């Protein structure tokens, strides 16, 4: 038996240890041996984890589990490179000898060097030669240790589609000979924006409401926040926008636990038990937003501020809707999205200005870029509810039902319609756009 092995049971491992270990190993080994060996490195990392699984389950956890897995993975990669005699070429490419490369990797695996390798991989996975969907899939695969079937489950796509996205991404990286380098100063802003965008979209994928409780989707949110936190810790990448993005993620994460009932059905903002919101995360979000202060706030700043305003409201009625309207005004100056206008209209209506809100919604109707008529109809329904016009509200919700809907969306609407038809309104509100965007 390995003398390193202690009597610690496998329970001692921290949560998600294998997942994060996988990301770390791939990042460090790909940096050392080259992104073109990504497939090999992923395979050998997987094998090292399988070996750990089989050994540790029997004999307990070694005293340095990270180092143990790293050595297994590193040696197996070296074995293959030597055996396949592609070694010479690999070495020529990195302009060093084997010993040098191994010593670099050994040095990088030391804890204080790992974030740097992970950041490099983040810029590889979010490289502009890849399309957005491939960037997200590859980030989940490489930096979050997700399997293809987990990616498929998390992104609500088929296994085949997940596989295609990841393969397409790897092929593009190989063809373009992308290196695990941090972006040069003149590209920094643009490349960083791409990483922020990918993390933002990744978080939204995990956060968007679905029928049934799928813990993997919460994991996607957690991973996006983890990677964003990593960016925040870097002197060049921890910009005010990055910090605001983290604040945004944390503020939304605070409400994750209150969004699904025991049967897995979605609970809308208005009906959530606010005592279930994670106060620690709210405080952390507030703290990061404070640290993100800048003279030029980004959309992440305003979106975070809106999410936090909800977090701080003791009830739906006591929400500072005036502030939310103000933040949407600013967002619209930065980015004139019809979805922001729709949300601003709802906030306006909630603050009492229903007529102006109705006008705004009417003006959105028939616009080419108002892609989601479903959301528009839901918003109209809500506005009519606020005017105590339950017949028009039912009409609007019924119109929303005519579109192509996910099952949980249909269920929510049908439930609301029957409530309205039944005992008039019961005072509960229905802010569908908040949860279904």
């Amino acid at each position: 038996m390995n003398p390193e092995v202690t009597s610690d049971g496998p329970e001692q491992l921290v949560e998600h240890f294998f997942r994060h270990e996988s990301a770390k190993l791939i990042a460090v080994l790909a940096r050392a041996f080259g992104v073109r060996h990504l497939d090999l490195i992923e395979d050998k990392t997987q094998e090292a984890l399988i070996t750990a699984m089989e050994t540790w389950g029997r004999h307990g956890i070694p005293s340095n589990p990270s180092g143990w897995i790293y050595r297994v993975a590193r040696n197996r990669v070296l074995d293959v490179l030597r055996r396949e005699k592609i070694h010479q070429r690999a070495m020529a490419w990195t302009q060093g000898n084997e010993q040098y490369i191994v010593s670099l990797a050994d040095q990088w695996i030391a804890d204080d060097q790992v974030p740097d390798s992970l950041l490099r991989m983040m810029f590889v996975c979010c490289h502009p030669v890849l399309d957005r969907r491939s960037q997200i899939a590859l980030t989940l695969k490489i930096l979050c240790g997700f399997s293809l079937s987990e990616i498929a489950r998390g992104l609500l796509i088929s296994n085949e589609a997940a596989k295609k996205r990841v393969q397409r991404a790897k092929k593009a990286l190989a063809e373009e000979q992308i290196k695990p380098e941090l972006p040069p100063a003149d590209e920094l802003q643009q490349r960083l924006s791409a990483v922020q965008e990918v993390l933002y979209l990744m978080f939204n994928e995990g956060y968007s409401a679905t029928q049934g409780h799928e813990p993997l989707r919460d994991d996607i949110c957690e991973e996006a926040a983890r990677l964003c936190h990593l960016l925040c810790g870097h002197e060049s990448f921890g910009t005010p926008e990055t910090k605001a993005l983290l604040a945004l993620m944390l503020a939304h994460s605070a409400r994750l636990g209150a969004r699904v009932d025991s049967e897995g059905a979605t609970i809308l903002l208005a009906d959530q038990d606010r005592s279930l919101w994670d106060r620690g995360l709210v405080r952390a979000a507030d703290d990061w937003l404070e640290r993100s202060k800048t003279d030029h706030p980004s959309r992440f700043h305003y979106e975070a501020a809106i999410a936090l305003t909800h977090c701080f409201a003791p009830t739906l009625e006591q929400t500072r809707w005036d502030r939310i309207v103000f933040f949407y005004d600013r967002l619209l100056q930065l980015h004139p999205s019809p979805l922001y206008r729709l949300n601003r209209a709802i906030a306006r209506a909630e603050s009492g200005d229903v007529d102006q809100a109705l006008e705004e919604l009417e003006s959105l109707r028939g616009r080419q870029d108002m892609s989601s008529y479903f959301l528009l109809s839901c918003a109209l329904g809500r506005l009519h509810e606020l005017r105590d016009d339950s017949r028009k509200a039912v009409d609007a919700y019924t119109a929303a039902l005519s579109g192509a809907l996910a099952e949980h969306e249909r269920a929510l609407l049908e439930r609301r319609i029957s409530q309205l038809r039944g005992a008039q309104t019961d005072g509960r509100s229905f802010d569908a756009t908040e949860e279904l965007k």
Partner: protein
Amino acid sequence: MAKFMFLHRSGGPCAFEQSPEEMQQAMQAMGRWMEDGLKAGWLLDTGDGLKADGKVVHADNTVTDGPFAESKELVGGYCMVEAADLEGAVELAKAMPQTGGAIEVRELAGHSMD
């Protein structure tokens, strides 16, 4: 009481579809199974895993690389348990966390006993 050897036959390539998260969970479940067995006394030896490559020594002492069995039949590990009978041993094997393979339950013949 009788002694049994559990031979773990690997699940073949499908084992590689496992995600790190699932592996960690499988390993922790395996650890609990082993711990329970050691405490209760029915686990005689936690055994070990077996490396995939080896040599095969034939009757005429020729040596070949191997075993090269179908990967899904390859014995990847073993452990020793004690149970009242084969049925009891099978129940213990059922409780053992699986990682996509199969467990072969074989009673020791006792030939080596005094």
